[in-house]
């Protein structure tokens, strides 16, 4: 990607507003709008932790929790949720609340911005609250009319998972 000679301003507020919007689509179960936040070539990866307490490093050789080399996998997930035939993800509908903090710009390359942030999702189902929390690393492309996620790496810090982890938990 070429760096524009006069790059437009990409403010902290614009980045945060975009992250909030993506999370809101999950909380409101607007999964089609959520998919619109992603570029077709997005790499979506949630590594596993190894017994050595380190994250797995390569989704091509190690076991991950979720790994998709493009948007197709995310579309498959939304398809599955929308069938309402997965008792784990559809009925009763999970209620989630995403909370995002510590949004930090790591690097900017033209219209591409690398950010990291902490997230904490409360998940309520069957009168039980399960927390999911961690840190995510995004590369966001601000070149188009609305921002697109080109890379998303999710570090789930409480990886002793009760029952299920899906895209709407993280």
């Amino acid at each position: 990607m070429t760096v524009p000679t006069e790059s437009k301003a990409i403010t902290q507020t614009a980045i945060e507003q975009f992250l909030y919007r993506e999370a809101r689509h999950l909380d409101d179960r607007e999964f089609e709008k959520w998919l619109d936040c992603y570029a077709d070539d997005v790499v979506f990866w949630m590594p596993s932790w190894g017994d050595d307490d380190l994250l797995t490093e390569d989704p091509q050789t190690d076991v991950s929790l979720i790994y998709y080399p493009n948007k197709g996998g995310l579309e498959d997930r939304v398809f599955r949720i929308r069938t309402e035939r997965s008792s784990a993800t559809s009925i009763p509908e999970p209620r989630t609340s995403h909370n995002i903090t510590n949004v930090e710009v790591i690097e900017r390359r033209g219209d591409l911005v690398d950010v990291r942030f902490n997230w904490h999702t409360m998940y309520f189902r069957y009168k039980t609250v399960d927390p999911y929390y961690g840190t995510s690393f995004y590369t966001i492309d601000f070149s188009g009319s609305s921002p697109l996620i080109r890379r998303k790496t999710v570090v789930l810090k409480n990886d002793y998972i009760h029952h299920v982890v899906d895209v709407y938990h993280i």
Partner: protein
Amino acid sequence: MTLLNDPPSGLITGTGSRLVAEEPERFRVHRDAMTSPAVLTEEQRRIFDHNWLYVGHESEIENPGDYVRRQVGGRPLFMVRGAKSNQVNVFHNSCTHRGAVVCRRDQGNAKVFQCFYHAWTFDSEGKLSGVPDREAYGNLDWEGLGLKRVARVASYRGFVFCCYDPDVVELETYLADAKDYLDLVVDAAPAGMEILRGTNEYGIDANWKLLVENSIDGYHAVSTHDTYFKYLVALGTDVSGGVDGVGRSLGNGHAVIDYRAPWGRPIAKWEPLFGDAARVEIDRLRAELTERFGEARARWMCEHNRNLLVYPNLIINDIQAVTVRTFMPVAVDRMIVTAWELAPRNEEPDVRQRRLDSFLTFLGPGGFATPDDVEALESCQQGFASGGVEWNDISRGMARPPAANDEAQMRAFWRRWRDDMDRDDLRSMP
């Protein structure tokens, strides 16, 4: 001391026969088996203290000093490759001085294991090699104060098992016909199998035996995993053949379902999900296995899926990928599940990638299938609380040669469970 003379445990004879009722065409399990804390206490002694239990895979500790820490049968242990012997040692993870755990990480390499409490130090063969201020003691039996080995340790084709009962039968005798199915997994990999990095750990609010049943249950696939099959159809897979095969008892409580299913297998059955480019490689793998093992065995290895139960709590499912899963109750209605992926060493990178994709799509807490299984098991446990209905029915297939979507393989487990729970000759193991 026998269990019967062990008042604090309050163990009763005949628990198995009370809870498992078998008639010619009817097989029932009383729901107390899943809900009674007293039954769980008995299981700990009668089942987990006297059967061979899976510890880990030899590939996890290849070099001298490599170790992994595990909970096996509810007890903290660690498995380490001895620096002198190059053998697999399995030790009780407890300092012989005052009890603290001496191996405090889940995995690593160490020359010595030092207890952080008083700095007693043990080498990888378990020998007590360091005691601060040793002169403060008289003539202690330092040799006898080495790490305590688990009574029996043995390995079959890379799978390491241990048993707390020194008088247990040899591992190979115990495994009975389950050996053939372990052979099928291992033989498919000329350079051997290895556990891949990345452990799945998840909890289920259900009795542990429900996961035994679920792991070898062909009947639930079409209903519980409806979304997975829909997903396969959307990708162009022909699912009309369904799940077709047999359920078998393999002796000593081990059992398997052995079947054909619509999905692909990295060794070696192509499906549209793999992409056209993969076809050549899959065909090559198949041809290689045919050459080594003949047409019939190669077909068995490549086209059949095998969900194997090694009694009491090891599952090796050779399906879209090979998963190794073990689980332990922490309460009568809760278990912890640990799962790994097993794959051939030196696998072609694109085959490995397909294997990982298949594994992640179906298995694990982030997969398309496992969460629905978990949901089903938790739902059963919730349903038990309703009372009224006392017995589960496990009769399916008793009136015909058992198919993979019958329940013969579950009956094999429950018969052994019944016999174990009936035994009155079992000591509690230190």
